[in-house]
């Protein structure tokens, strides 16, 4: 038998070689070869000052450069070269780039992001370039002109766009988050209302004016709507309901009213369904409805409270929610129809709340109050159940929400004494405080 196999194998190899020769010269396909070990080094990028080609009355080139710098610095994938190592001449366009000076010590940059800004009446235009200083002959990886109004907010917007283009290139096609938004709850106007800001804390604007209580905002997957918990009176009875806000038309959209308390909405990854807690039949359980509130059905059936559902954003087939059916609130994993419920066991007791599933579906962030201590943010690898603690001994840290790039987490923290919104990289490094005014809580990162 093995002899027959060997004969077959020989015949096959002979035929294959014959075919190879018969095919003659193959199509001259371009190819390259690269690879990886487990660790990766961050790309070293230099970001010289933006060259002003006109005389600006406002410091727009500086604003642009500062925003670009902080976007790239906070991306988590780049290593920015310190400005003190830069050559004296900042290039404004490829012909002015002295690539060798940037590639040599002490700068030792790998890429350089630079450009020039011109004022054209009420408008500005920025010509942005990203060049590989080790291959000065090759065309710039990015060469693009960004246009906007000559205002501070537009200069910021253009810088965010340029930063996203750079990050998308240097990360190999994963979009950046510099143009994403944060929805959160702020009580600075007297009532708890939904507010929206840029991902870096700029541009904070009030969205709702319900003059009651608004909680738990959740962006729809296309970032066009925000579902949240609202307290709206009806015939002198005020109860918690699900409200819907359109981020496109900046107004509330109708959503049906249900009996009892309804709260903590969550979008399915395709945006067609909404899961939320409702006590319309007595016990607070999780219900799923269409995005317009129709076709309501119940998916959890257990004594005790079940709330805070979150869908697996990658597959939409699984859900994690909080339930106190076993005593204290902990996380449960189930299929999205409510079947196959299993407890997510943790190595310690305590309250486990606010689950948030990472965009790639592999990590779960949540806040956990262990018997000894404050609420802290943890991340769990769903498959291996490994835990990483991201915050430690810094007052209460709650309600994590993932950025669409899966590299950043936003959360609320009381580490400054008041409850404020913070963001950090998903490994717990580089915490940034985003809000400073009043009390702010319950942030949610827009998916795009």
């Amino acid at each position, binding site marked *: 038998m093995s002899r027959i196999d060997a004969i077959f194998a020989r015949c096959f190899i002979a035929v*294959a070689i014959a075919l190879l020769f018969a095919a003659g010269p193959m199509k001259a396909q371009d190819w390259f070869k690269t690879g990886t*070990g*487990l660790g990766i080094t961050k790309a070293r990028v230099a970001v010289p000052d933006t060259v002003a080609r006109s005389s600006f009355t406002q410091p727009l080139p500086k604003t642009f450069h500062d925003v670009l710098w902080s976007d790239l610095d906070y991306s988590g994938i780049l290593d920015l070269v310190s400005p003190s190592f830069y050559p004296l001449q900042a290039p404004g366009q490829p012909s002015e780039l002295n690539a060798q000076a940037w590639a040599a010590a002490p700068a030792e940059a790998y890429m350089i992001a630079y450009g020039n800004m011109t004022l054209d009446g009420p408008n500005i235009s920025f010509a942005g370039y990203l060049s*590989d200083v080790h291959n000065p002959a090759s065309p710039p*990886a990015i060469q693009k002109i960004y246009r906007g109004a000559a205002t501070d907010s537009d200069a910021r917007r253009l810088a965010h766009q340029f930063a996203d283009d750079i990050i998308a*290139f240097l990360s190999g*096609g994963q979009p950046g988050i510099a143009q994403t938004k944060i929805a959160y709850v702020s009580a600075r106007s007297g009532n708890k209302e939904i507010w929206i800001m840029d991902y870096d804390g700029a541009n904070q604007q009030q969205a709702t004016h319900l003059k009651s209580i608004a909680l738990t905002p959740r962006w729809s997957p296309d970032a066009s709507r925000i579902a949240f918990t609202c307290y709206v009176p009806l015939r002198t009875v005020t109860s918690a309901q699900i409200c819907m806000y359109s981020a496109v038309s900046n107004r509330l959209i109708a959503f049906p009213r249900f009996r009892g308390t309804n709260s903590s909405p969550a979008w399915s990854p395709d945006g067609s369904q909404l899961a939320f807690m409702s006590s319309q039949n007595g016990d607070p359980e999780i219900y799923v409805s269409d995005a317009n509130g129709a076709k309501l059905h119940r998916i959890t*059936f257990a004594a005790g409270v079940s709330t805070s559902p979150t869908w697996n954003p990658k597959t939409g087939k699984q859900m994690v929610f909080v339930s106190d059916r076993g005593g204290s609130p902990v996380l449960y994993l189930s299929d999205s129809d409510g079947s196959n419920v299993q407890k997510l066991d943790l190595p310690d007791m305590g309250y486990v709340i606010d689950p948030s599933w990472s965009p790639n579906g*592999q990590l779960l962030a949540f806040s956990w109050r262990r018997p000894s201590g404050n609420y802290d943010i943890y991340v769990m690898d769903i498959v291996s159940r490994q835990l990483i603690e991201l915050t430690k001994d810094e007052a209460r840290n709650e309600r994590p929400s993932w950025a669409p790039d899966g590299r950043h987490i936003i959360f609320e923290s009381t580490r400054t004494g008041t409850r404020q919104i913070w963001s950090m990289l998903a490994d717990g490094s580089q915490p940034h405080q985003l809000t400073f005014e009043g009390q702010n809580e319950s942030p949610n990162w827009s998916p795009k």
Partner: protein
Amino acid sequence: MVAVATIRTDESLKRFFYASLIFHIALAIVVAISTYFSPGGESWGAPGGSVTVGLVGSEPAIPLPEPDVVSPSRVVDESKGLYKSEPQPKPQVEPDATPIPKFEKNKPPKYISRPSKVLENPTPPPPNAVPYGGGGTPSVPVTSFAMGTTGATAAGLIVGGASGGDFASRFGAYVTAVQQRISREWLESTVDPSLMYAPRVRVTFDIMRDGSIRNIQLIQSSNNRSLDNSAIRAVQSSSPLLALPAAYSGSSVSVEFYFDFRR
């Protein structure tokens, strides 16, 4: 004489019959008494101890025991490994009759078998050894020939070090971007946790004009299925990559990507 014998037999049988009758009656009485006094027999079926069975109102009202969570072992790896597991012993069938050996032909064996150095390695296999048998051909990079990349078997190349055409030298930044992306998508948690070191895994694929990835092929296995799968998954989840550089005129680029695993 015959009659005398018959009478004697009759008498003896009768005596045994009566003895047996008395014994059976006594046994029946003992059984009856023990049944009467046995504990538990009384309350059986009594109204106080009955079980009420009603219609099922709603499913969760039944306090079902929690099912045992059996997490599938990620350590199991059915790929073919380097170490041969012991073969199943064949059932020995005792021959009905054996021929009588002839003394003349029973010579001493010419060759005394020594333990093979190859198959019977004195060092025990490491705990992460993959058992022998089940798929996994020897890793011959056949596909690299099919791609017309004869240089693909050269070892130890660094980023952009080797290429067909001048793609890597012209668009070095693109190559680095691809490398960064796939490296980030390669997750250590998807690899068998007991694996500490593995041979290099090589994967080839094509990047289309729009950055999508096609024709993912494993051309060199690490002999560990979980590592091979994690490498392929890293490439799959990197799609779509960055679109090919605008200055590049071709419609696609082939990539050979290696993964070195060492914890």
